[in-house]
């Protein structure tokens, strides 16, 4: 027991001495830097390995995260907005039975004076059956105020043929994919059948005003857009609406706005932000993050073996030399500090090379990676087919920290061994 205590105390003293030498001794740093370059070829090989590992992880993270960002942006910009206000109970049971009977006036009044709101748009959502002379398809009906909707979503810019809704009566926008399936063209007549709020079957004929294509294949396949008043008439719902979609200036402050609106509007409504509206999207983002850590771990463990190996080699081939310097008075802690500096320099040079390589890669990919050949698979996940890499600070800091820690740990074992060697034995070593 006594023995153990004494050893622990001695180890504590040793560690403190190492830290002191590590921090204070500029001379050690100079020696360490020179030692790193004594075997230039070996150092260069490790540096390349580290650089490839760093650049590989940074770039693949950036591409992955770019994909996630675009998925989120697409969902927000094509449909969700940042916030939506519904009547109570809509989340569990979406349908015409849950509607804002005042036409959303209360919500609008609150939104008009709230901070951070850039636009809002009223909508009616329901399901219907769209029939052409050739075929029919089940569709989601989204009725919009064209002018207000244009400030929430990119629908107006997604029209590829014909024109956006502009108040002309009995016009409908449908996706290109749906048009193909129903075999209709611009100006074709289609009949939309649906049940109204009383449960009666209602139908009305529309002409195709425009065709759209968004990065979401679900929208392209199964959503049609009408003008708000016409849907309200079709569904016999007066001036009631299903939802208010809201866009904000600052997405990060959505939760604050949400809290404010819940207080203002009370129990009669549900206010949900985009994360709550599309929980799957959030799971997806989380999944990408978890995958990222697995990738980091795998690559860095492989790198650690390389670093440890080089440090071991460089220490063992200097057994005699280290013996000489300890016998002429260099202390053990200083040897450890010196070797630790060596591994830090090695990793540091690797990191710098890695970041230069990453920056080059990102520069080459700055216009995005065009994956349109595989576009449908991406679109069915709601991702546009050109992916622009996005680098987060976190994705740069994490590899830096992990590499530095890996380097120190990998160098520590040989360092401690070197410092413990007895000079007399070391000198006898060839």
């Amino acid at each position, binding site marked *: 027991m006594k023995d153990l205590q004494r050893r622990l105390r001695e180890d504590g003293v040793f560690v403190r001495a190492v830290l002191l030498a590590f921090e204070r001794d500029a001379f050690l740093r100079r020696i360490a830097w020179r030692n790193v370059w004594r075997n230039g070829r*070996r150092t260069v*090989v*490790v540096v390349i*390995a580290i650089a*490839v*590992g760093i650049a*590989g*992880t940074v770039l*693949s993270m950036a591409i*992955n995260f770019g994909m996630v960002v675009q998925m989120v942006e697409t969902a927000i910009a094509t449909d969700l907005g940042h916030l939506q206000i519904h009547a109570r109970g809509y989340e569990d*049971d*979406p*349908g*015409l*039975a849950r509607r804002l009977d005042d036409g959303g006036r209360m919500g609008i009044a609150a939104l008009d004076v709230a901070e951070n709101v850039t636009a809002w748009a009223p909508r009616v959502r*329901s*399901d*219907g*059956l769209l*029939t052409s*002379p*050739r*075929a*029919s*398809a*089940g569709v989601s009906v989204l009725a919009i105020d064209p002018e207000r909707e244009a400030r929430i979503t990119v629908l107006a810019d997604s029209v590829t043929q014909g024109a956006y809704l502009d108040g002309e009566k009995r016009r409908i926008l449908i996706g290109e994919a749906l048009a193909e*399936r129903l*075999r209709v063209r611009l100006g074709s007549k289609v009949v939309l*059948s*649906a*049940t*109204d*709020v009383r*449960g009666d*079957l209602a139908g009305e004929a529309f002409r195709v005003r425009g065709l759209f294509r968004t990065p979401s*294949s*679900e929208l392209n396949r*199964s959503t049609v857009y009408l003008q708000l008043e016409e849907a309200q008439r079709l569904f016999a719902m007066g001036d009631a609406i299903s939802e208010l979609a809201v866009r904000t200036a600052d997405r990060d402050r959505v939760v604050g706005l949400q809290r404010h609106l819940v207080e203002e509007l009370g129990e009669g409504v549900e206010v949900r932000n985009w994360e709550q509206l599309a*929980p*799957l999207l959030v*799971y997806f983002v*989380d*999944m990408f993050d978890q995958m990222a850590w697995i990738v980091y771990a*795998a*690559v860095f463990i*492989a*790198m650690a*073996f*390389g670093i440890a*190996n080089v440090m*071991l080699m460089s220490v*063992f*081939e200097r057994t005699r030399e280290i013996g000489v310097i300890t016998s002429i008075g260099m202390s053990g802690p200083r040897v450890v500090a010196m070797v630790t500096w060596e591994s830090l320099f090695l990793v540091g040079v690797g990191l710098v090379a890695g970041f230069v390589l990453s920056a080059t890669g990102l520069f080459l990919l700055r216009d995005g990676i065009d994956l349109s050949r*595989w*576009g*449908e*698979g*991406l679109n*069915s*996940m709601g991702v546009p087919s050109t992916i622009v890499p996005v680098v987060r600070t976190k994705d740069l800091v994490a590899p830096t920290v992990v590499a530095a820690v890996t380097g120190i740990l990998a160098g520590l074992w040989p360092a401690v061994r070197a410092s413990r060697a007895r000079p007399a034995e070391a000198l006898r070593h060839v």
Partner: protein
Amino acid sequence: MLELRLAWRNVWRNRRRTGLTVAATVFAVTLVVVFVAMAAGLHEKMIEDAVRLQSGHVAAAGRGYFEERTLDQFLELDQELFDELDGAPGVLGWAPRVISFGLLSKDTDARGVGVLGVDPERESSVTTLAGRLKRGDFVSAEASRGIVLGERLADNLDADLGDVLLLFSQSYSLETAYDLFTVVGVIKFPDITMDRSVAVISLADAQAFFAYEGRASEVAVLAKDADHAAAVAASLRTAIDGDAQVDVRTWDKLMPDLVQFIFIDDAGMYIMLVILVVVVGFGILNTILMSVLERTRELGVLLALGLRPGAVFRLVYVESLLLAGVGLLIGLAIGIPIVLYLQANPIPLGGDLAQATELFGMDPVMTWKLKPMNPIGSCITILGVAALAAFYPALKAARGRPVDALRSV
């Protein structure tokens, strides 16, 4: 043989260094085997789920159906077709379906739905639809106006067993079709979109409802597995003997989204594995390079004694391959049992991950699959990397001039 023995001894001269390099290789090989098997399992499951849920491995339909998917393109269900299907080798089961759309309403609620008319007995020879029943029964064989709803669809319509729903659509003859159906069952589709929007009725009901007597939209065919789909499609094409009215497709043509998704997913994974292998490759390069450089004198002696440069080159090469080979064997010895265990005991997923898998229309289970290409590919990759890494050091060793080498310390 002598070279092999010499190389083996050389590899183990510096045990610590070799040990670390081998450890890195073992680590990489194990990861590669496990990850590749995970992706293979995931993708195979996605394909099987999709195939066993909807498309079948192969589908036959009226010409043009796969492009248009309307009632205008149909198959005549006659004895001749049945005989052809039964006669085609490799066909394990087949099921005719009528597929169209309708508006399904209960009280004030209505939903656009995909209507799937199936023959329950035949359907169970291809898909697992009936096995996914949550409550109630599957549709019966004869016309009975029973309807089975996806679970979310039933929730959204607030409908339960025994409720009567109005189905409204357009028939083949372009007339308005509507009829009342009674909910007899609720089914859980793993795919969210399907769960929200598919209603199943019996084939007989569907044919009556859509004025489609004796016809079907498609016949789904089951093969042994996805890899046999092409062969079955070919034998089917032979069986129908060039009937221009029938179009036969395999699952990958029926679900191009899925094929593309798998491609992208694979690409992401292989990029990661390549980075990993490259990092390990540099480790091997460094080890071999160091061992050559510290043996300059010794190799010089060998050359001076008359060993040919080619033999020295081979020696270093064999060392590198042995080094990688040891790591490779241990890595496979660790990775393969892990994968085989996981393959036999799939991991059920819970919570958030379970919901995320539903996005892809899958059951929340993580499966692994060891394909022969997986260990074979790992061997080729690792040995290939070792061969590449050895090139420079081997060249350096073989090119050394004995005189210079002997002078070096």
